[in-house]
């Protein structure tokens, strides 16, 4: 591209400023025309030619300045063409409307009121279209619609990353930085310095000053050179007024160019990653401690409050393990409650079995539970932690528990009748990891099991 002299570009940059004058004048002419016609305010008519005249002059000025700006080559030529021709059309029409209004041409079709309104409506339409294309050039074509309330959101669902190793350096880390700090001026429609950073192809193509990246050599890469310049100097990026890159962001880009050879497909795991970079990556990917999400739970079936209220009035403590999951932690603390009779326990357990699919943790210490009761508890197949310490359970009862496929932890301490035999049965529960047998006749040092026994 031929070099354009600085003075041309200097004036060209006044285009976005000047362009608002014709918009204002011409709109105002339209409003005057409407008011004059429909509210019979004839006095207003006088001002219409003036408004049209000023509108036409400033439109011509804006066209000239716009052309000068377009010479910089910073813009996508396709989008630019549309803006250019619509701009010219608006200007021509504005001049025509002025001529019409001032009756400089005498002709047969001087049924001027209707014609004037039609012309001015058309001008307003053209103005809007031109302005829209111009806006797209400056802000990007999705600027208006990004936050459209009803439109379908086309924001790409981000691929969920769980470990830093599986993250793609470019897609998950570098691109978001470019998006935040660079893309508003370096995109496919507004290529400042001829450079677009939108996508792999454009980035590799580079800009007026050559390649933006030199794989393996960050200090020679234009993209890094520019952010390291003195912030007051002319070439410093992002330019004054925009948010500069943080040291961490710069370090990560350098790491990608140097360690990752500016490869667009590489994952963090396949590159030698220094510790300080890992920290930054974790931060960028929200995988560090500040990422506050813990393990969540799936949602279980709804439970009628009536059943829960009844259980609570029987002295059962019920809480949701995670809010709004209906997964329950059910326990009875024996303080200050009269001990239930054997029949009372059965009634309680039958009540509990109505919500058995919701019970995940169940704790019934020192409630006088015997083998018979385990028949009901053995149907609570979602239970993962079961506390039956200080009850009167024997080996026989434990065979009912083998259906509890989810069971991870079983507390049987101080159930004095339990012997080694019961362990045989419990090994059938695959998920079971911890068994508490303190205070039983079992000597945990003598037995062998794949479970951890306390």
């Amino acid at each position, binding site marked *: 591209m031929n070099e354009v002299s600085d003075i041309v570009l200097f004036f060209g940059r006044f285009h976005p400023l000047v362009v608002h004058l014709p918009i204002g004048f011409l709109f105002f002419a339209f409003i005057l025309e409407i008011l004059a016609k429909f509210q019979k305010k004839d006095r207003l008519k006088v001002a219409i030619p003036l408004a049209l005249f000023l509108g036409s002059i400033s439109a011509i000025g804006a066209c000239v300045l716009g052309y000068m700006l377009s010479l910089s080559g910073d813009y996508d030529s396709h989008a630019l063409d549309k803006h250019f021709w619509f701009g010219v059309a608006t200007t021509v029409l504005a001049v025509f409307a002025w001529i019409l209004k001032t009756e400089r041409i005498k002709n047969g079709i001087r049924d001027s009121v209707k014609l004037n309104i039609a012309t001015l409506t058309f001008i307003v339409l053209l103005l809007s279209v031109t302005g829209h294309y111009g806006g797209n050039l400056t802000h990007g074509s999705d600027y208006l619609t990004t936050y459209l309330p009803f439109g379908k959101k086309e924001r790409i669902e981000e691929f969920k990353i769980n470990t830093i190793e599986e993250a793609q350096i470019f897609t998950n880390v570098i691109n978001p930085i470019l998006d935040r700090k660079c893309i508003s001026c370096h995109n496919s429609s507004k290529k400042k310095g001829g450079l677009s950073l939108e996508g792999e192809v454009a980035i590799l193509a580079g800009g007026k000053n050559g390649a933006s990246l030199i794989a393996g050599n960050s200090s020679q890469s234009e993209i890094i050179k520019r952010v390291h310049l003195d912030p007051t100097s002319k070439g410093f990026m992002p330019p004054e007024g925009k948010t500069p890159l943080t040291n961490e962001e710069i370090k990560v880009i350098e790491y990608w160019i140097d360690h990752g050879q500016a490869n667009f497909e590489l994952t963090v795991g396949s590159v030698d990653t220094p510790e300080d970079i890992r920290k930054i990556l974790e931060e960028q990917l929200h995988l560090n401690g500040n990422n506050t*999400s813990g393990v969540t739970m799936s949602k279980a079936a709804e439970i009628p409050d009536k059943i829960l209220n009844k259980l609570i009035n029987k002295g059962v403590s019920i809480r949701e393990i995670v809010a709004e999951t209906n997964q329950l932690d059910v326990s009875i*603390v024996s303080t200050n409650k009269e001990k239930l009779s054997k029949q009372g326990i059965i009634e309680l357990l039958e009540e509990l079995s109505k919500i058995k699919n919701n019970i995940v943790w169940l704790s019934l210490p020192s409630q006088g539970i015997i083998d018979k009761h385990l028949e009901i508890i053995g149907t609570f197949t979602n239970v993962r932690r079961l506390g039956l310490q200080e009850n009167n359970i024997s080996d026989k009862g434990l065979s009912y528990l083998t259906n509890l496929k989810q069971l991870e932890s079983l507390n049987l301490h101080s159930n004095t009748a339990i012997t080694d035999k019961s362990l045989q049965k419990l090994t059938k529960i695959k998920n079971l990891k*911890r068994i508490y047998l303190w205070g039983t006749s079992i000597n945990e040092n003598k037995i062998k099991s794949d479970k951890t026994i306390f």
Partner: protein
Amino acid sequence: MCDHHDTLRSNNKDLQQIEKMLDRRSFLTKTSLGFGALALGSLLNADKAWSAVKNNTKPDLEMFSRNDLGLPHHLPKAKRAIYLFQSGGPSQIELFDYKPKLKNLYGQELPDSVRKGQRLTGMSADQTSLPIAPSIIDFKQYGESRAWISSAMPHLSEVVDDICFIKSMQTDAINHDPAITFFQTGSQQAGRPSIGSWLSYGLGSDNENLPTFITLVSKNGGGQPLYARLWGNGFLPTEHQGVQFRSGKDPVLYLTNPENYDGRDRRNMLDYLGKLNEVQHGFYGDPEINARMSQYEMAFRMQTSIPEVTNMSDEPEYIFDMYGKDSRDPGTYAANCLLGRKLLEKGVKFVQLYHQGWDQHIGCPKGVLGNARKTDQANAALIKDLKQRGMFEDTLLIWGGEFGRTVYSQGKLTATDYGRDHHPKAFTMFMAGAGVKPGITYGETDDFSYNVIKDPVHTHDFQATLLHLFGIDHERLIYKHQGRRFRLTDVHGHVVKDILS
């Protein structure tokens, strides 16, 4: 004129209601027909209030209520916690942070390159010399995790494989009062809710007959004072404050009935009192009235629950032997550890123990050994006891003070004696149990135990991690007060994911 309205209104929603009742506009509205109307108005109001009470006289049917704060946010690892607070600032150099290289530097000046201009307390700032004092207490490695423990803690060395040592703790404060307040409430200034109060507010009670948050102060400590605000509720509703059990015969005062009163009509008395308070609440809407009512009810239930839970006679001899001979003497650290376990077993969510006396400005080796003797066996016994009862998998145990101690000697350094001043930049804590990786040591200090060189854990990080283990996102447990949103971790804190199992 009318615009003044908003500026005079409180931020608290409950108080706004009251202010609306009391303001000029509603006064004029009510009195617009003269004083007759005023009288009638109050009569009508009173009637309303009474009818509200009538509907509520028998609130016997308890209702299941979901946690209206949306807690827990995620799957909790801990259901309850016991925090063994070692008040005064235990010396990490004498207990856990083994620094063999110091032996060769005995008596030498602490290099400026290590101190890096760190401020000193008024107690050692005037010292002309800051001589390095290596620990005279021996260290050995224990367990499969090969953790370094000094000979001051022989019992703890048996359970190191259950413990996660954090050697890189850091805090902002350098004196006792702000440092303890900072650890317990997240702010050096008094007035914020303590950790236990946040948990009580956020998660509620597991046993309505006992307070959710109980504090025990051991009587065989002594030293820097403690204050009730360390277990205070701050701006949270009053029922969330920690209830302190005393170390004497009656752990909670005034629970026993007075002489010549059998207490049989207490229930009736409380019911009528409740009605009266209900009227007051209907009129003023002060939330503190509700808090007071719930505390009366709690006290009533504690009349039976406290004697039961503090009754040590059902503990077998070998349990007392395990905790050590102090445990038979109520109010000692060992006895409090045992009592703490019993409270946790009965559904208390947060037990906060305090042991004072770790402030070894002078006579450091002797002081550390003395305190270790009072606490070591009970610490280890508590871990073993929780394990055998199956409680270790969902109970979090925390041991730690408000800061550490300096590598240099405060006062005269001799071959057998030295003192150590406060040091906030590096000290050791340990956590164990629910959701914490067992048998690891996290973080490192330099050769002087003065600066953290790897994985620093700030007080706020510790608090964030604690809440995380209870299923709480520390950034989302928030209480709005005086127009500002407050958190335990203020605007700081990172969950230390590396120590989570």
